């Protein structure tokens, strides 16, 4: 058991890590193929794991429904949404060319309600795939709404961050104001006057700090990779040390 749970994963991590390290320094076609092969395995594993994810999601909400925990009504929404999207994905072809008669009432309904009513041409017409339609009109819109909320969150966060309570906060406030005035397109004369200052702050002190952080991140990533490749860091395998 220890072999499969500990030694085998460490050996696998070591082999994969070393192979991928040397692959980076080889321009050969074989190196390219190796990367493709590893990426393909990544995709396969992700595809298999998605079933685990779906099971986890449904099981979690089933438990909530069964126990009638507060807010269990949302779990019904999850089940309805999941079922509708799954049916839409499985029952309708992705290709929008669909036969009016073959698709029957659903096809006619989709054509009439979702895509206007183009005149049928010899029994074949274009309908919108329901899966795409739901995605475009629900998911994308809701996602955009969430993203739009960010503007208000930034405003409230900026209010907290820029309160000049300390010397550092005052410097931050002044720098932020200069950058904003130089970049926000309110008045041309302000933009023209402050644009060089804004660019200087972004390209010099800001960039210097960012590069310092990047150096640290990259070295830390190499060190973490080494710890994983040589089996020193094993927390990710479970079972602690």
């Amino acid at each position, binding site marked *: 058991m220890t072999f499969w749970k500990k030694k085998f994963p460490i050996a696998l991590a070591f082999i994969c890590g070393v192979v991928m390290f040397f692959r*980076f*320094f*080889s*321009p*050969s*076609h074989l*190196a390219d193929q190796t990367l493709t092969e590893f990426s393909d395995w990544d995709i396969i*594993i*992700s595809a298999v*794991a*998605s*079933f*685990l*994810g*779906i099971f*986890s*999601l449904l*099981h*979690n909400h089933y*438990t909530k429904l069964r126990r009638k925990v507060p*807010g269990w009504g*949302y779990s019904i929404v999850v089940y309805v949404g999941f079922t509708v999207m799954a049916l839409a994905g499985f029952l309708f072809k992705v*290709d*929008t*060319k669909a036969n009016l008669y073959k698709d029957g009432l659903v096809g006619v309904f989709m054509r009439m309600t979702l895509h206007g009513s183009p005149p049928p041409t010899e029994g074949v017409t*274009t309908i919108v795939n329901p899966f795409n339609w739901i995605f475009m009109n629900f*998911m994308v819109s809701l*996602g955009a709404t*969430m*993203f739009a909320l*960010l503007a208000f*969150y*930034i405003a*409230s*966060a900026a209010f*907290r*961050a820029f309160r000049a309570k300390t010397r550092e906060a005052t410097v931050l406030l002044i720098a932020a104001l200069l950058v904003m005035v130089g970049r926000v397109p309110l008045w041309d004369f302000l933009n023209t006057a402050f644009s060089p200052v804004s660019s200087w702050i972004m390209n010099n002190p800001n960039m210097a700090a960012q590069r310092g*952080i*990047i*150096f*640290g*991140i990259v*070295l*830390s*990533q*190499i*060190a*973490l990779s*080494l*710890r*994983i490749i040589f089996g*020193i*860091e094993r*927390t*990710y*395998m*479970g*079972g*602690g*040390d």
Partner: protein
Amino acid sequence: MIKHTTVLILVLAAVLALATSVPAQQGAKGGGPPAAKAPPAAGSAQTAGRAHTPAPADAAAQESAKTKAALDSFIMPATVELIDYPNDDGRSLALKFPKSPSESPNFTYVVYVSKSAGGPWYRATGAASTSGKILMSANPADFGWAEETSETHIIQVELAKVKIGEEAFKGRDGMPQKNLEGEPIKKDLMLWDKSTRPGSTFYVRLIVTNKSGIERQVGPVLSGAPVEQWADPAKANNFIFSVLFCVVVLIFIAYARRNPNLFIRKIPGLSAVEEAVGRATEMGKPILYLNGMDPIGSLNTLASINILGRVSRKVAEYDSKLIVPCRDPIVMTVSQEVVRGAYADAGRPDAYREDNIWYVTMEQFAYTAAVNGIMLRERPAANFFFGGYYAESLLLTETGASTGAIQISGTDALTQLPFFITTCDYTLIGEELYAASAYLAREPRLLGSLRGQDIGKMFILVVVVVGTVLASLGKVWLDHMLVTK
């Protein structure tokens, strides 16, 4: 009469179009002296259409003669060599030739390729202007910094990208496929097909053209075979630094085994982990832990999972509740395994609840909405945000702040760091995220790697300072040594 004139125009246009459409054929016959070419079909049609307006036709003819004369006066490069493109996978050749004194933005070099000396010829991807972009000095990693590299052109001929036509894309049923608009889907036919291997012979012609599209061949038809390289010397500096850094880290890991009491500076955010877990336990509220938005292949997610292992152990010891909504199914599976192991290590395997670590969705903002909902409904006393984050970071942490939870975050996403710093009580910046697991575990071997990192940082710092001084003094050899692809 009109009908006859129209026919005449069409015939003239067709003849001129034929004469200009395959410029490579003439040169391919012998690779003899450079041959000036007639204008392309479009220009020919214009000439034909001007039969009824003699004055503009004369002007156009004069202009055409002028541009042709300019091309004729173009001083050809003395030598043109076809070489294997260095440090590649054997799918590129390169044309190497010295700069011509006649070069100007009015002229462009174009490359035609064929699998046989007699054609057919196909234009290689893109046309290279005569500007500095195709000088060898533009790619010092492959061609070095010598003086002559700024006087020599190198045009990479990417053989695998030479398109020779299109064909219908067929499905599994053998039928041509159509896109959502009902138009047939086409796929490119490439010169480098399945039977082509590195080492196959290709024929290449260098053409110089002017703005009117008149072409003139430079030098003879050349042939060559690309060679596949196994190692890329242009990355040697990268390789040496990586190996040296690995050796340093491994040395310090070995050193730490013998001297376990290594000093590591205090990281306030990590020191507060225990405080946050204790606070949640006292309040009888859960602890929310997020692994970030990146998949398991990202190092920041691995770092986050390592921290999760340490945090969940403390949670198990305190007998508190940990909830981990996941964005990726693999991350979820690994997180479940890590937390289960941590509970077992803490001697509380019975307290582990798999339902508390579940998959939500891969949709970025749907996930954000779900987690925000959890924060508002369950009111966790402590929120941990470790890993890679994007635009959702502020939405998550601001909501968490509004619930009054103690918040600890850590990310290597530079653009999100300001948001975390603003809204969280403690933030691990960049490298601290990767050091967190070692810091929390206090295991000598892990701490040793941190000391190795410090040596690496010291080295980079020295290189930056020395490089700045040398560059200020006009000495650029260090800068040249560090150039990479």
